[in-house]
């Protein structure tokens, strides 16, 4: 019994120590690890469809029809073309 308690106590003790010191290390040595968050650039995600606990058939087809690839391909500059600012893109297209 005492051995089981010792095993559990050491797991809990070293686990807590690992958590505490990893947090301290992260605060001390990982500086500025945040990236720009979504809220900086948008009002958030608007969900149009929510389905919980879906079956395997729904799971595999979920989103079909919602995403239409042709919409994105319309009016896109070629992938290998160097990016230019919008006003110059219009100038180039017109010429």
């Amino acid at each position, binding site marked *: *019994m005492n051995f*089981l*308690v*010792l095993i*559990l*106590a*050491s*797991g*809990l*003790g*070293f686990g*807590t*120590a*690992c*958590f505490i*010191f990893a947090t*301290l*290390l*992260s605060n*001390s*040595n*990982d*500086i*500025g*690890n945040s*990236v720009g968050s*979504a809220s*900086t*650039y*948008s009002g958030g*995600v*608007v*969900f149009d*469809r*929510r389905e*919980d*606990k*879906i079956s*395997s058939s729904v799971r595999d087809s*979920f*989103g*079909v029809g*919602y*995403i*239409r*690839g042709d*919409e994105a391909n319309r*009016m*896109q500059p*070629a*992938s*290998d*073309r*160097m*990016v*230019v*600012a*919008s006003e110059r*893109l219009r*100038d180039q297209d017109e010429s």
Partner: protein
Amino acid sequence: MVTNCRNCAGRLVFDPSSQKLVCESCGSMFKPEEFDISEKEELLDKKAVSMNQIQGTDDKDFMDCYVYTCASCGGEIIINGTEASTACIYCGNPAVVFSRIARHKRPQYVIPFKITKEEAVKIVRERFWQGRFIPKEIKNFKADNVRGIYIPYWIIDCDHKAAVVVKGQVSSGKSSRTAYFGRAGRLKLRDLPLDASKMLSDASSQRLEPFNLRVMKPFDEDYLLGFYSNISDITYGHLRNAASIRCEEYFNEAALKDVSGASRKSIYTSKSQTSIDYNNVRYAMLPAWFVTYEFKGKHNTILVNGQTGKIVCGVPWNKVKFFALLILTGIALTVVSYFILNPILNALFASSSGRSSSNSNGKLVAAIVMGAISLFTIGIRKIVKVIKSIELTQAYSIFNFVKKRQE
């Protein structure tokens, strides 16, 4: 070289603290917009010429080498394929390669440096002194290089549509099972800055954010004086890819948060489409300080946002101190846990005779084991994240981005 002092024809550099051009000889100050654009346009003809063209060779070693003539002393300045401003090695004059920011390549906006070189080093040093596990040698670091570089960014608006299936564990009675949740929705991102330099990794540049884009100024070459800068060298393919990755990250994060009543959630499948508004793509130069120092034979590059002063880096840690303290604390907490758990578990197991009691004892033991595993897992994940951050700071690519410039 671009714009000389009107009083003494001395060298002018942009001073972040006064936000003016300052003459290094007589100290006169001028606003960048005071100088007529026609004075600069004369310099458009001074183009950077490929080293291979000069040598009449086709050597791959010269692929990214260009020669530019200093307008002040006539000296030859060697630059890479994307540099737009540098300093002359002979006379020290700030040099702006006008042909590279002319006409269709010209940025539309610039955020001038607000943090001076001295402030950047001071901010880093102060932050290092707060670090518990930062070695003393690093706290007293001597910077090998401190370079102010304007990084090219594309600022875009985009719409993202996605449908994801989230996988998670839901409890059902005494057991748990895997369940799937569908989420489909839209995300609009406005004024999203995307790094336009292939030489600088997106992982590094993203961490410099956020920039306050509301204070962007119309681009003027004079803001580049005294700083290094690069021009955009990415294609629409790169831009779409970078926008799509950012949108997916944000959408997936929101979808995982939106699913409630499940644990251990992850994205199972994802279909998405990102549309960029090509009518509103803006080209801007955003400021960053790159501070490099050497520690145990490795080059470390710290990034400092030139507008906000945000520091970005992973700092090598004092491993002996870290593990010694972790082990000592682990032993102390083990002793404390032993004295707490011993009477509780002994009492529980001694009194358990019926089946239901042994079940609850088993549950308690399982909960302690799960708790210990969770604490270890979270701790190890955090340490791995720190190590990855240090690797990014020591990456050769970022060191190269800073080093390969004229002194």
